[in-house]
C-alpha cells in the first residue's frame, strides 16, 4: 500500500504497466491486483 495514488497523474495506469511487465517476466498471461502488495487497502482502481 502506498499513500496515496492519484488518478490525475495516471498513477494507477503507471502501476498497471509495471505489474504487466512483472507478470510477463514471470511467464504469466494475466495479471490481477492481488499480484501487487501496493494496492492493498486502496479502492479498486482496476474496475
Amino acid at each position: 500500500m502506498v499513500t496515496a495514488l492519484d488518478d490525475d497523474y495516471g498513477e494507477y495506469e503507471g502501476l498497471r504497466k509495471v505489474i504487466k511487465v512483472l507478470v510477463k517476466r514471470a511467464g504469466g498471461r494475466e495479471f490481477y491486483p492481488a499480484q501487487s502488495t501496493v494496492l492493498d487497502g486502496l479502492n479498486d482502481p482496476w474496475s
Partner: protein
Amino acid sequence: MMLASLTQRLISGLITADLKGLTTLDLKLPCTHDFFDLSKGLPDTFCNRLWHLSIGITDATGENGDRHYTGHATKERDNDDHYPASSLQKKYPNFVYSNGVFSFIGRCPNLLTLELSGTHYLDGSALVLPELLKTLTIRRIRFDASYLSTLLWQVSVVYLDDVELTTGVWNDVWKVLLDSPSLTYL
C-alpha cells in the same frame, strides 16, 4: 535511563553470546535513537555476518505515531493528534533520529534481505541499501520520488506499506521501475 541500560545489555548479550553462526536478526527497539547505540556498540564482525535484517520501532505514541495505534485512523489521516507522546518520544522523536536506524543498516554490507518498519514516519533520505540486497520491505517511511526510484532500481522484490512521497508523484517511481532489469515482485 532504564531503556538505555536495556539497549546496552542487549548489545553486550549479542557480543558475548556465542553467535558465530548468526545471519538473521529480527530486532525491535523502543525508538530510532536506540539504534545509534546499537550501531556504535556492535563490532564489524557481527554486522558483516548478517544476511537478513528486520528492524522495527515500538514506540508509536503521540501525533502521527502509527496508523494502527489508536484505531481511529481513516484513509487520509491518522487521527491521533490528541494522543500524548511518551517521555521517550519527547526527548528522542523517532523522525528526528531516523538516521540511527540508517547508520546501523550502513554497518551491515552483506544484507540480502532488509525489512524496515517505522511508527512515526521516518525520513528515508539517508537510507543507503547494501549492494547485494535483493528483497526490501519498508513501512511508514517518507521518500523523495526520485530517491525512492533509485533505491528500488537495485532490488528484485519490493514490499511497500504506508510509504509516502515528500516530493514527486508515484508515476515518477513507476516510470523508472518499468525499465528495471531486476524487479520481479512489487
